[in-house]
């Protein structure tokens, strides 16, 4: 609750961000800051290993921001999110290999398949609430993986290999540094997109559903459609993440899409702060980089990783950077007067004695 501490310390200044510190964190320039950091990173460290880790982290940010739409905005606990990434990765792999297409040309197919997958998985399950939904999504995640494991078109357990890299206007972007930049640009746009969706009419409807489904329904929000929309957007973000993943590794197999991966993406969302895009980006970076920083520890690293996660959740259960309900209000004069502007058909003048 520490994000509330500042406001309570300055109760008379309600309506303004409480401190310079918190204002910095609410700043709109912060996204640009993160973007610049991501752009500068290869100039500091451009070893193939660092580029590999960096690209993986960037793709992971995309997955987390997609899952944030489903879990953070809409409050639907999805334990099989990686299934959408698998759908995207396999679709782009299969289509690009079968017709010898550049991988970017598979994007329409990826989006269509992800929307279909979102409808097929979400359609029957979104009538369920909370815990039941979590169990069913867990099952669907496994179904997708097992299907990929047993079909011949997906290459069975050995998967698909030799997936082409990214090519754009004749430029080959499959080298590690250009591909990293490509991912940074694409993911930045998609993260911005998910943040913007969160602040729109649809995004508010998602939050209303998360907060109180019945009240949302009473206000005319078709909760089923709205939840399905969250699922489909999450699926598209996940699918595009899968496409980048396939282009990055050039080989995919069912082992890439196990439950642990779903759990890690979910962890990034929860750890970062559900519903806040910035927090989720921080969480995704932490989850993907922490095991690498701990690599020197050998086998102990996952133990330490686990301890760190538990510690964070105990000390800061709302996540590093939770979404903070705050809005800049009109100036005091305006809101205190209860005096609406001209052309007001329901002027509260009659209730002036209230």
């Amino acid at each position, binding site marked *: 609750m520490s994000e509330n501490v500042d406001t309570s310390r300055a109760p008379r200044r*309600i309506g303004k961000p409480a401190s310079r510190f918190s204002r910095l964190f609410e700043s709109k320039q912060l996204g640009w800051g993160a973007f610049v950091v991501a752009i500068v990173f290869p100039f500091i460290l451009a070893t193939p290993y660092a580029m590999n880790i960096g690209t993986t982290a960037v793709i992971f940010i995309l997955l987390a921001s997609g899952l944030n739409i489903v879990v953070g905005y809409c409050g639907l606990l999805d334990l099989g999110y990686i299934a959408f990434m698998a759908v995207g990765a396999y679709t782009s792999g299969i289509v690009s290999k079968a017709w010898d297409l550049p991988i970017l040309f598979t994007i329409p197919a990826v989006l269509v398949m992800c929307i279909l997958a979102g409808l097929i998985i979400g359609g029957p399950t979104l009538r369920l609430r909370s815990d039941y939904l979590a169990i069913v999504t867990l099952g669907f995640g496994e179904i997708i993986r097992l299907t990929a494991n047993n079909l011949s078109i997906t290459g069975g357990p050995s998967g698909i290999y030799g997936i082409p890299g990214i090519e754009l206007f004749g430029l080959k972007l499959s080298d590690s540094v250009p591909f990293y930049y490509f991912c940074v640009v694409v993911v930045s746009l998609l993260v911005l997109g998910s943040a913007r969706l969160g602040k*729109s009419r649809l995004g*508010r409807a998602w939050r209303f559903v998360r907060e109180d489904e*019945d009240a949302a329904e009473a206000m005319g929000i078709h909760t089923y459609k709205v939840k399905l929309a969250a699922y489909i957007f999450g699926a598209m973000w996940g699918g595009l993440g899968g496409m980048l993943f396939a282009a990055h590794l050039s080989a995919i197999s069912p082992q890439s899409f196990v439950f642990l991966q779903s759990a890690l993406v979910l962890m990034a969302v929860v750890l970062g702060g559900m519903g806040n895009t910035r927090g989720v980006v921080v969480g995704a970076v932490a989850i993907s980089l922490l095991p690498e920083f701990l690599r020197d520890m050998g086998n102990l690293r996952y133990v330490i990783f686990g301890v760190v996660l538990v510690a964070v959740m105990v000390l800061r259960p709302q996540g590093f950077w939770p979404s903070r309900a705050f809005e800049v209000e009109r100036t005091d004069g305006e809101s205190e007067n209860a005096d609406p502007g001209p052309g007001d058909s329901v002027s509260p003048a009659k209730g002036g004695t209230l």
Partner: protein
Amino acid sequence: MSPLLEVNELQIAFGGVKAVNGLTFSADAGEIVSVIGPNGAGKTSAFNCITGFYKPVSGTVLVDGQDITGKRPAAIAATGVTRTFQNLRLFPDLTVLDNVRGGMHLYGGQNFVDALFHTPRYRKSEAYYTDEAHRWLDFVGYRGGRGIPVRNLAYGQQRQVEMARAMARKAKLVLLDEPGAGLNHSEKRELLQLCRKIRDLGAAVVLIEHDMSVVMEVSERVVVMNFGKEIADGTPDEVKKNPQVIEAYLGKADEPAADEAKDAAGRAENPDGGKL
């Protein structure tokens, strides 16, 4: 002119219990109708049925001549029905303004493409939503902070926000389920004023209320329910004199008079509607 809300022979059963058993009543535009009755009489069940949260066993609900029986709540809201809940049902982690915007979902004005690219349509509709939110908060006389989470507000303010959210729906039919519960005396006076203001906008106001002084003062018509059925329907004075009502609800014959006396005393104290 046909009434705005027509409830005909409405029946709802939970297992073997008939919570509402043949309720019939109506409400006109520009009218305040109170639904009263002892606990367990089926008032809230009837509201939940009118707004689609419960599916009736039989009977019909017409709003503006349109049959809405058994539709889903969102579809019923779209025909112009709005409501508040007996126990506050706000969106606790969202700001006051966002809560009020909740009532504006059906205004439309933008789709997800607008949101992704921040088109002029998006900006325009967001500005409109914000203006409207402020306007409705002004309308209900809300004076607290507006950019803060609604969970931090006092109970009376939360009630106001819920009213603002319901009004932002701009509905023809406003169903208020015990809007006065948990409010103090002056807050109740404000509520009465607000009910009248809503009526003056041309909406039909149907409210469930336990406080007899509120009911008798504000309503044009009172529907008394007992055992899931209306037992009386008329002006407050008619209902007060109805022997069935006295027996079923008021218990003692002298109670309405006592209430009225108390009410008159309240008016004398606060001649202009309860300003402190």
